[in-house]
């Protein structure tokens, strides 16, 4: 048996142990990415194999928390895929404007950049005070960062460009204050966002959402978990509500596909039908 094959077995054993001890279920995460992240964590951990690390991970909660940060952290940026946000303005916002109040679930919000991007769009489109974004992530550490809304100043140039390409109508610098090497987002953007920890693999649905954003999260899940999470979203969405996925994610061939129509080809914004 090769060393790679033994690592495979170690990954499976460790994920089973973590599930039984801590209740976090990574057994249905896509293997190649999970293994890559575990290998990176192992390299920095000082342990020579996952088997040796396992004995400590299952007994030491603090050590496990560090591993959890390493394998669940997702990167994010403001207005990633500007064309997506442009389509959001053109295709979705006009519908949302007809509601007295709009509830949005942003699942897998990571460090919050996209949740704030969404808040900026809703402010600019005149929905101020009429919406709430529930931004959730499995990783409590990134939720704390998201709540702060402080990002490296060096990223702002790129974010500004993306904001402009997304159809931004204002001046992006109005949304943050530069302080030393950081950009602090305007506190008013946070007023309508509730950040909370939520584990898509085991936790329950959020009721009566008008819009669910979950971009580039499902790519990390194996098919059965993808299906389960999509059903969770389907349950949480009101009829006529919108589901937004990442550029390379699709509802096609998934169980809930028939309940939805895609607003524009390749845009990955789906609308839930009123009757089945």
């Amino acid at each position: 048996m090769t060393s790679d094959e033994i690592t495979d077995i170690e990954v499976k054993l460790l994920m089973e142990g973590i599930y039984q001890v801590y209740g976090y279920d990574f057994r249905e995460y896509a293997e190649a990415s999970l293994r890559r992240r575990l290998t990176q964590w192992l390299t920095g951990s000082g342990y020579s194999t996952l088997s040796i690390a396992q004995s400590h991970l299952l007994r030491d909660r603090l050590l496990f928390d560090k591993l959890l940060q390493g394998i669940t952290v997702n990167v994010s940026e403001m207005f990633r895929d500007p064309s997506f946000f442009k389509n959001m303005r053109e295709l979705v916002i006009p519908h949302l404007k007809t509601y007295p109040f709009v509830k949005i679930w942003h699942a897998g919000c990571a460090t919050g950049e996209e949740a704030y991007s969404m808040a900026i769009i809703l402010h600019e489109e005149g929905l101020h005070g009429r919406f709430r974004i529930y931004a959730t992530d499995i990783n409590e550490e990134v939720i704390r960062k998201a709540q702060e809304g402080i990002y490296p100043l060096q990223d702002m140039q790129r974010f500004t460009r993306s904001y402009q390409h997304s159809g931004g109508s204002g001046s992006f610098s109005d949304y943050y204050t530069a302080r030393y090497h950081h950009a602090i987002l305007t506190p008013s953007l946070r007023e309508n966002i509730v950040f909370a920890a939520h584990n898509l693999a085991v936790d329950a649905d959020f009721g009566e959402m008008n819009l669910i954003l979950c971009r580039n999260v499902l790519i990390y899940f194996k098919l059965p978990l993808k299906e389960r999470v999509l059903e969770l979203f389907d349950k949480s969405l009101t009829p006529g509500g919108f589901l937004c996925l990442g550029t390379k994610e699709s509802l096609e061939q998934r169980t809930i596909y028939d309940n939805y129509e895609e607003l524009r080809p390749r845009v990955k914004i789906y609308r839930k039908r009123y009757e089945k």
Partner: protein
Amino acid sequence: MVGVSTGGVSALKFLLGALSVDFPVPVLVVTHITPDADDGLAMLLNTLCAIRVKEADELDVLLPGTVYLAPANYHLLVEKCGCLALSIDPPVNFARPSVDVLFVSAAEAFGPELVGIILTGAGNDGSSGLRKIKNCGGVAIVQDPADAEMDAMPKNALSMVTPDYIIRLSELPDLLVNLVSGQSSQ
């Protein structure tokens, strides 16, 4: 399995253009393209080449006679089941997609049944991935730096790996056909 960067489009046009529609194995390609590119390159190559070229989608099952191009701004990985996966993990060697990410996951999935190729390009992406392919018993090929439009990527690869072949682009199609005839490799 091809990693290619600067100057890669013309190299790909030549290499993929020389492969026939009944090429017996799948081909995976990472090329360093701008993050906001769409699938235009895949569509262009598909019209220019006999072999089928598509942008890689997650859960794609690898088929012979098909070229899968890593999409812009995503890493491309191979699962053990022989299907594809994507990730938005941070750039590796300043690149997303990264050649190393694909090569390492493919080496873990396919072991000796893999051919890794580094073509023209800037930077050092692909070098450690090619070493991994070699360590897992696969075949490593590097374009002769003197033949490459940009020689940094092949040169860096040669500094880390002793490949099985160092060849000119013009010789590559025949070599690949010989390597994969009668066996199943990528």
